């Protein structure tokens, strides 16, 4: 034991050295990456280097303390780089240049390669590097990381999630995770490669985010973000490189690969939920069920409360979203049930569906938002998830047997996304109010206070960066590429 303590005490190097190494590494890496991708960033070499160095410096200054693991660093890096792209090349610079509002969208579309460059060349390497530094340097107690659990659970979840596409793989020779790779003649080779990639993504998910994900809902959020990231990294970048084709980061290529993006998002969502499901099941079956760890309310009570509050919150969310949707005449489509249920019947079905979806929010996102400023973004992420899962995938699958994942189909469903975001925000708000009301009682007993605090997501996790990355790109990509 003493030996262990001495090892731990000797491991972190002097903070003074780290104080210099980290910003220097960030500046150097930013400058180098920007120089490497100057063509995609659309700037002269000198400007690219300066921009990259400044990017690295600002990222280190703003996010280095938050990037305490490679996974956290990656999420902060992706969120920061997406924000920088939106604010600088696509937004502020255009606004200050006096670019006409009417051409800003086409201008942003033209700068799609810069978006990929920001994410892949700047955000990803800087985030992971500072995350590694952070993991080595961070003092204080940290959550225990289990390599074996991360790889096994992540790999298993990844492979199981890959099975979702098996029908399309065999019937339509559609391999969403392998977009960008020239198809080989053997179907079995493609299938094997598909599962290899699925395993790789799943294992990397476990390795990167084991300590970040807390519940099923946040894990789905992480899966959503990771799916989007892998689309940029895999089909748009890595696979063309591996197959010897040149990298094409144009918006047209993005539009062509839009179906793969949806595939990656759906894969990420399923990966997230299976990963957290296996992880939670382990905790529930073998740890929480131990009488020594018994809590005043068992898991059954928690689940029931979450379902009840979620149903009520979802119902209110559905009611709140109804006027907007009625005014625009798309109410039946919000429930994703086609146009066969007009009038009051459509409204009832919409409300019933809202309540059921609200129940899933209760189950997935309880204890994620401790305040409105945290609960509402999770609600919006939930709305976005349901847009990809519901109108984009499940509803067409149920009614037609096929899911249309083309950019045009996503573009046509954009109005529903507005409704889903609104629904998610209201549902999260009502759920938070119900949760708080109950906690008012619970916290009267001091024994419960510490436990409830532990359940809540603390400040400092990469959740805000994930909200922005997922909401921004989840919404922006159908707008840009549709």
């Amino acid at each position, binding site marked *: 034991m003493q030996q262990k303590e001495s090892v731990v005490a000797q491991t972190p190097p002097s903070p003074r050295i780290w104080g210099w190494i980290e910003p220097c590494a960030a500046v150097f890496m930013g400058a180098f990456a920007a120089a490497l991708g100057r063509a995609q960033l659309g700037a002269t070499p000198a400007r690219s280097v300066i921009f990259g160095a400044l990017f690295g410096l600002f990222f280190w200054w*703003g996010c280095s*303390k*938050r990037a305490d693991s490679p996974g956290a660093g990656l999420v902060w890096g992706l*969120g*920061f780089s997406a*924000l920088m792209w*939106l*604010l600088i090349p696509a*937004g*502020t610079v*255009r*606004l200050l240049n006096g670019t006409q*509002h009417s051409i*800003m*969208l086409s201008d*942003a579309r033209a700068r799609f390669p810069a978006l990929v460059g920001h994410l892949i060349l700047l955000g990803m390497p800087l985030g992971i590097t500072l995350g590694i530094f952070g993991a080595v340097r961070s003092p204080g107690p940290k959550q225990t990381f289990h390599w074996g659990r991360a790889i096994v659970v992540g790999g298993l979840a990844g492979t199981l999630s890959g099975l979702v596409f098996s029908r399309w793989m065999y019937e339509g020779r559609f391999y969403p995770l392998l977009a960008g790779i020239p198809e080989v003649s053997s179907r079995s080779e493609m299938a094997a490669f598909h599962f290899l990639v699925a395993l790789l993504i799943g294992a990397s998910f476990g390795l990167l985010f084991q300590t970040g994900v807390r519940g099923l809902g946040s894990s789905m959020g992480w899966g959503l973000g990771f799916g989007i990231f892998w689309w940029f990294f895999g089909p748009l970048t890595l696979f063309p490189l591996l197959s010897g084709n040149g990298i094409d980061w144009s918006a047209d290529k993005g539009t062509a690969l839009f179906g793969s993006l949806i595939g990656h998002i759906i894969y990420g969502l399923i990966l997230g939920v299976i990963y957290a499901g296996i992880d939670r099941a382990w905790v529930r079956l073998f740890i929480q069920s131990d009488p020594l760890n018994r809590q*005043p309310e*068992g898991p*059954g*009570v928690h689940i*029931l409360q979450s379902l009840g509050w979620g149903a009520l919150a979802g119902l209110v969310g559905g009611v709140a979203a109804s006027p*907007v949707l009625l*005014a*625009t005449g*798309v109410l039946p489509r919000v429930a994703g049930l086609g146009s066969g249920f007009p009038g009051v019947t459509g409204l009832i079905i919409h409300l019933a569906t809202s309540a059921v979806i609200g129940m899933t929010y209760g189950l997935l996102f309880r204890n994620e938002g*401790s305040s*409105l*400023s*945290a609960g*509402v*973004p999770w609600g*919006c992420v939930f709305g976005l998830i349901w847009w990809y899962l519901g109108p984009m995938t499940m509803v067409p699958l149920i009614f037609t047997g096929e899911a249309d994942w083309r950019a045009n189909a996503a*573009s*046509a469903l*954009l*109005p529903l*996304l*507005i409704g889903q*975001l*609104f629904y*998610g*925000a209201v549902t999260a708000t009502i759920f938070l109010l119900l949760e708080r*009301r109950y906690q*008012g*009682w*619970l916290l*009267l*007993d*001091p024994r419960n206070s510490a436990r409830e605090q532990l359940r809540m997501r603390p*400040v*400092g996790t990469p959740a*805000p*960066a994930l*909200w*922005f990355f997922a*909401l*921004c790109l989840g*919404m922006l990509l159908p*707008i840009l590429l*549709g």
Partner: protein
Amino acid sequence: MRSGVDHLRKGWDKAGWYSKAMNQMRRSIRRTSIGILAGGLASPALAFTIGPWNLGLLFGIALGGIYAASLRPASRAYADNLMAGAALSIPLWSLISVVALPIFAGQAPAWSAEGIRAHFPALMGWVLYGAIFGVINQGMSDWATTLWGPEAEPSTATPAPITRIVILGGGFAGMKTAQCLEELLKSDISMHITLVSETNALLFTPMLAEVAGSSLEPSHISAPLRSSLRRTEFVRARTAGIDLEKRFVLLEGITPGAALAESREIPYDQLVLALGAVPNYPGMPKVEELAFNFKSLIDAIRIRNHVIEMFERADREPDAARRVPLLTFVVAGGGFAGVELAGALNDFAHGILADYPHLRRDEVRVVLVHAHDRILPELSESLGHYARTKMEERGVEFRLNARLTDARPGIIVLNEGEIRSETLVWTAGTTPSPIIKALNVEKDKHGAVKVNAYLAISSQACVWALGDCAAVTDAKSGKPCPPTAQFALREAVTLASNVAAHLAGRPMKTFHFDSLGALCVIGHQTACAELTVPFARTRAVRFSGLLAWLMWRGIYLSKLPGLERKIRVLFDWIVELFFPRDIVQTIDLK
């Protein structure tokens, strides 16, 4: 007026409420002011992109205030606020720029992909606003901390409660009163609720006969009081006395021999009497000595074990005459409890015959003794007749207009003869708890405490009563309310509401409730039901047979407290469909 405010403030101060509210207000003002200022500074991004500049400015300021007020600030969380602000700006863009602003401008919202794309520049403005606001708000919050110190933290000290509400009795009435008070008082720490009960669980009495009949596991029909109540202090003890003058309740321990050591006094400001009733054996000490009660879970367990014991002894008994008292089971009382128990025992006794090959079916007798000419007086005559006919078909014997006068070992004496039986279960009468008898308050002829229309004891301030120990009169009809669980639950709702209203100085409600009807199981998959028609309370619908039995099970399963218990009971019922009833003898506590 001023003294009233001072009094209120003093009361609040005592509970810590005043300082808590002031701290909360200070925090809100500080956060909102910072948010408004930060929103104002960030709003040019909106003013530049979403149309009339003054509208952008207004949105920027208002949303800044709202966001900051809902945020729990953390020190130097610049990156978090940068991202959170930018993330929240995306749904705000979709709600305000895409939907709300066109509607307020009298136009249809841009409800198409192209229409949404036309608002792309506004999205830039919103994200810019959100990001800038997040950073400025954090900076100003940190600056405020440097200038004025950190925000006042919510007090963690728990002030002493100023009002103590004590509920005596953990039956339907007491438990429901505690639950309703918890709902009404929410997290008000100035109120302290205590529930005193001799048992630590609420017994769901409608299913008690099924425990005696070995259909259900005993613990499955009891809900633990400690787990069911969130903020009520539970005390398992016997009430030894109540001092209405000094306002305290004297408790004694349940453990035999430890009464003195466990004695304690509990002071109260509001006292709720929900002590229920106990079996009453008027002038029949021998009957009291020999008969089984049928009020508690232990009573039901004892009856079940005793029946099995009788079968075991009868199986070893070669003399047919000596087997008669062993296999004769007498239930005294033809009300709901007696009829349901007789039906359950009849099914149980005949069902387990298969395990006792030396006993014949015609040797087993279940006899119901009732002092009147028809059973189930709470139901209509036709249903009473139906119940009797059905039960007779299933083998139950009836001795109507027969009064039980005495009992000796192996003999039960009626006014019209004797029955040879080793088993007598008494369900024929109850009387309010002995503690009530000792109280110096007005009572009715049965010994129940008289309460007014608000369920308060008129002669004693701050003392309330309900359930079987109280003589409650319906405020609308003027009729006495029956001592049933259905009425006790409704009385509890009114009483809790009145206690809360009394404490808050609000007007109280009078008690009125129209019975919903009654259900009674009389044997295997057979029941009687008489339900009041909604909105026409004078009319009733009658069911019998399988439909009524299904209704009984459905309704009472839904009323059983706790999902866990519901699931367990449901499983017991399903198991019963496929497997014989259990004849394992458990420990007899008598």
